[in-house]
């Protein structure tokens, strides 16, 4: 027999999303401006060093080739950083209890953190794209692919960040995840080169790197050329997103490392 307040009111999803957006927006110098500056430095250094010496695709100069890779790298890294740092901060300071006590469902919890990560990733990516336009305007051959990969890629990395945040018990764990997994995987994904320039062994290894598909598919949207078919990239990225979503919702259901 149940007699409590059964008054059905709205869900907590909207507020949790709003709170997550406000959290990074209140410190946007650190969460948006700083990563845009970092990407700009990469562009200046690599294009200065390699422009005119390397041509990856016929008719595409190196700076133009580099821009989409840098944009996507910024999108992915910042999506990861948003959900992982938000969760570990709340865990370490103890205020995660404020979102664990209310009647927020597992899917809403997952959705709010992931969507906020997508917004942060896209905000940084747009910023990087705008400042790089000063140097070179890459073609926009297939804008829907650009948008699609930006959305799916940032959602995937936001979810990976959420996983890292759930798993981690202290800031060091997140740093380790970032330094030993995210950073090598992005740098070795073909942001700065085409995997066709690699020896066969490393080409084969790159094919197991999900970052490669996110970057390659995103770049296809600009040039209409890519290392593998964009459909394959879409399948890999979309499939990975489904797998990690199911995994995280199941972990949330079990209370893994959040509800002891």
């Amino acid at each position, binding site marked *: *027999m*149940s*007699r*409590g*307040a*059964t008054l059905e*009111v*709205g*869900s*907590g999803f*909207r*507020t*949790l999303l*709003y*709170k997550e957006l*406000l*959290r990074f927006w*209140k410190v946007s110098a650190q969460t948006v401006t700083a990563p845009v500056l970092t990407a700009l430095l990469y562009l200046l250094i690599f294009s200065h060093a390699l422009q005119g010496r390397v041509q990856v695709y016929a008719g595409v100069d190196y700076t133009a080739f580099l821009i989409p890779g840098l944009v996507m790298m910024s999108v992915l890294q910042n999506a990861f950083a948003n959900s992982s740092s938000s969760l570990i901060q*709340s865990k370490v*300071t*103890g*205020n995660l*209890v*404020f*979102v*664990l*006590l*209310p*009647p*927020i*469902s597992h899917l809403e919890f997952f959705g709010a953190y992931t969507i906020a990560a997508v917004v942060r990733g896209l905000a940084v990516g747009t910023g990087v794209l705008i400042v790089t336009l000063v140097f070179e305007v890459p073609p926009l051959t297939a804008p829907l692919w650009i948008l699609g990969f930006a959305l799916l890629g940032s959602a995937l990395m936001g979810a990976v960040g959420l996983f890292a945040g759930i798993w981690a018990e202290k800031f060091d764990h997140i740093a380790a995840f970032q330094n030993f997994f995210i950073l090598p995987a992005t740098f070795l994904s073909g942001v700065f080169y085409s995997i066709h320039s690699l020896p066969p062994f490393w080409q084969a290894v790159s094919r197991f790197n999900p970052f490669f598909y996110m970057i390659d598919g995103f770049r296809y949207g600009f040039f209409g050329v890519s290392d593998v078919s964009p459909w394959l990239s879409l399948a890999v990225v979309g499939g990975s997103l489904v797998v990690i979503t199911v995994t995280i919702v199941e972990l949330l259901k079990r*209370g893994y490392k959040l*509800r*002891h």
Partner: protein
Amino acid sequence: MNYAIQAQAVQKRFGSLQALGGVDLAVEEGEFFGLLGPNGAGKTTLISIMAGLTRPDAGSVKIMGYDVVADYRRARRNLGVVPQELVFDPFFTVRETLRIQSGYFGLRGNDAWIDEVMESLGLADKANVNTRALSGGMKRRVLVAQALVHKPPLIVLDEPTAGVDVELRQTLWKFIARLNRDGHTIVLTTHYLEEAESLCNRIAMLKGGRVVALDATANLLKRHAGAFLHLKVQGDLPEALAQGAPREAGGAYRFQLASYDEVEAVLAPIRAAGLHIEELQVMTPDLEDVFVQVMSGTPAQERT
């Protein structure tokens, strides 16, 4: 009978530590209920299980009739918990914090109630101050306010007055007592036993993860049927008499008596020794005496 809390055979183990060893507890709607016990007795673990912050290994808990695991959304909507740890989100002001907490419960346009809660807890002039800039006592008030944004029928306060000044304690209890009169069920843990004695109509005592006493406050006090005789004489008591009575800081002796009849047995030898009595007080036991007796392992016996 309508229950705000129904806990049945709740067990929880953390590694080798048995935090709860089969707790049965039922709290009726409208009660002001005290959950007492030494540190590590399992009070916070039990509260965490009610709130869904911890999963029980066995047994079940229902809040206002809703199972905290199977029907967690309804259970949580009916429960407000003031956590023991002094936590806050440094990104937001007091008002933002309370609006966000309302939103987590799906409530929008809740400002009238938020203002009332802030007013009642003496937070009104801090509404636009960042929580990071508040004193410990003010942060505690914010935590209480956060637990109340959704007007939960059941309010659980886990040591809300630990390290808190007299003013906040009085403000808090006045407000909580009003909520109790309005029909909210209150569950309180505290180490200040005089607080529990004056506020709670019923009390459970936990020790080592088990309920070792559970009764109306008045009945618990009656169990300790004896009295205390507090006595100070000029000089020292006769050896035989002093043995049974611990000496307090001021030099007074404290005799535990099974009944008032025993007063004479103490006074007679003093008279015989010709000692001058400087102070004399006979005191009835309070909750602390009952608590000490229960916790000392000898189960409080029904005395007649």
